[in-house]
């Protein structure tokens, strides 16, 4: 695709990227900036939850468990003297590896059985974190986890991560990496076979798709990114505790995903940014705001099964039908 054509088709994405890159110059409030950084981090977890739940149709409730494994991995390894840049991929791989082992038995069950068994695993992770005191510091958790080591960049010099701006660019870089990988996966035949497994597992088998292997792959990749996000979280926050792997976090991401739009790439990011902001504005309602989210969730699931993004796509489709400008080309067959 020629660069000008690319700009014409994807100008909105380019604009968004520019905005994201310039964001540190637009936000002056440290508190707001911190919310943005957490939004990026939780976008990664929600995007990866989206792969296994949204695209592959397997409701994993162990996501915060794997986030916690990544977090504890980075905390313990950096305390042992390892560089963050080595500890992070190792911890993400650990989460992926444990995900593989957990997936072997649990992915043989379906629907709510899979949800319950993964939920149990998530709870077990936080119980282990609370009781394996020599390693995890028990319920006090681990404090004083080092920030990411400064990155030596040729010509520019070292980049440290003490400032919020540097931390923001760090999480943004990982978010973009996650987004790129998710995009490649879901817009390919491989992603299509994940959706086939979600849609009709028996038929998927009949057309030659190994559904079990597909689910394992999706689960492992999702858990890799959950672990990755957990590792970054540990290093940026400096303290972690068993609540880092709590079920509550999984349910938060689940709400981000369902409200933002499952099985879309923009939905999880919209959810991860918009919902915490709404939460902030509804602070004054204290516990009652959960009622509002309950109602929102019910409304969205009934009227917009694919969340905000689904509603937007519907609107676009309708306006396109209305104006009769259907520009469908055969290029879209196997995705981009």
């Amino acid at each position, binding site marked *: 695709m020629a660069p000008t054509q690319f700009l014409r088709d994807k100008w909105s994405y380019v604009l968004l990227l520019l905005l994201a890159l310039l964001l540190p110059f637009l936000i002056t409030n440290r508190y707001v900036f911190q919310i943005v950084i957490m939004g990026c981090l939780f976008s990664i977890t929600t995007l990866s939850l989206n792969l296994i739940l949204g695209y592959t149709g397997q409701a994993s409730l162990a996501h915060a468990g794997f986030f916690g494994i990544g977090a504890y991995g980075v905390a313990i390894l950096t305390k042992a003297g390892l560089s963050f840049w080595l500890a992070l991929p190792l911890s993400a791989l650990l989460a992926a590896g444990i995900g593989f082992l957990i997936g072997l038995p649990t992915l043989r069950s379906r629907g709510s059985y899979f949800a319950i068994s993964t939920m149990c695993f998530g709870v077990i992770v936080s119980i282990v974190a609370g009781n394996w005191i020599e390693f995890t510091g028990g319920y006090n958790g681990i404090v004083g986890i080092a920030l990411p080591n400064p990155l030596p960049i040729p010509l520019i010099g070292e980049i440290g991560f003490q400032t919020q701006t540097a931390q923001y660019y760090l999480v943004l870089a990982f978010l973009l990496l996650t987004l790129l990988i998710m995009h490649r*996966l879901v817009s390919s035949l491989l992603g299509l076979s994940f959706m086939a497994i979600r849609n009709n597992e028996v038929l998927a088998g009949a057309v030659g798709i190994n559904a079990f292997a597909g689910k394992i792959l999706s689960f492992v990749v999702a858990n890799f990114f959950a672990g990755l996000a957990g590792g970054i979280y540990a290093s940026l926050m400096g303290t972690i505790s068993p609540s880092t792997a709590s079920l509550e976090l999984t349910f938060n991401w689940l709400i981000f995903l369902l409200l933002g739009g499952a099985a879309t790439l923009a939905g999880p990011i919209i959810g991860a940014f918009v919902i915490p902001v709404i939460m902030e504005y509804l602070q004054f309602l204290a516990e009652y705001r959960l009622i509002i989210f309950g109602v929102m969730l019910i409304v969205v699931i009934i009227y917009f099964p694919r969340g905000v993004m689904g509603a937007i796509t519907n609107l676009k489709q309708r306006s396109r039908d209305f104006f009769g400008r259907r520009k469908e080309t055969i290029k879209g067959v196997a995705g981009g």
Partner: protein
Amino acid sequence: MLLEVKNLSKHFAGLVAVNGVDLKVREGEMLAIVGPNGAGKSVLFGLISGLIRPTYGQIHLQGEEITGWKPHRIADQGIARTFQTTALFDQLRVVDNLALGYRLRTAGGFWSTLFHTRRWKEDKNRTTGKVMETLNFIGLADKAFHFVSTLSQAEQKRLSIGVALISQPKMILLDEPTGGLILEDTDEITALIKKIHKVAGITICLIEHKMRMVMDLAERIVVLNFGSVIAEGTPGEISKNPAVIEAYLGGESVA
């Protein structure tokens, strides 16, 4: 011999659904399996395609034993199938369904998808070509980007046959390809099946209730009743077979 089924049986908690069936499918033939409701026809297809594990007996495809294999491996070996209640990926578009049918002829693993390797690009282009070709073959080119749920019953039946066809199978098992269709649509599907047999040269094994269609299509007919083969022969022979007439007419009062 393309497919050889020996003494194949399936018991469901005491109920004998398929009872010692011997069946041979020759390369390139059009075989029909008929029989009253509950005769075990669909279970037989389930056994051959690996969806149901046989209680005993063997299945050989071109001399290789495939008994007890998982459905995706059997599909990979070249047995494609359709389902009685039309099964499609109804959350996806027509082109996606066909691309998924061809998926087993592509590599597209995790790493090649991640790095868009040359192999991955070749597979993608080949898939696009095959999808186009199949769309034209089954006459759904104008509905390529429609979602399955918007297709008519007959179009869905055609698409499900297309999904089986695109996988370049050695044989296709069609489970009631015209079930629930009106007469004109039935003729259209019959023509499509003939085309697949003649033009694509694929062996076809179909289950059907509409005797007129079976007599028109099949070169050979196997009749099942209560899980056993009760007759086998050309359409001419079958229509005169007393056991078959008994099963279809006299059998009514027994069942």
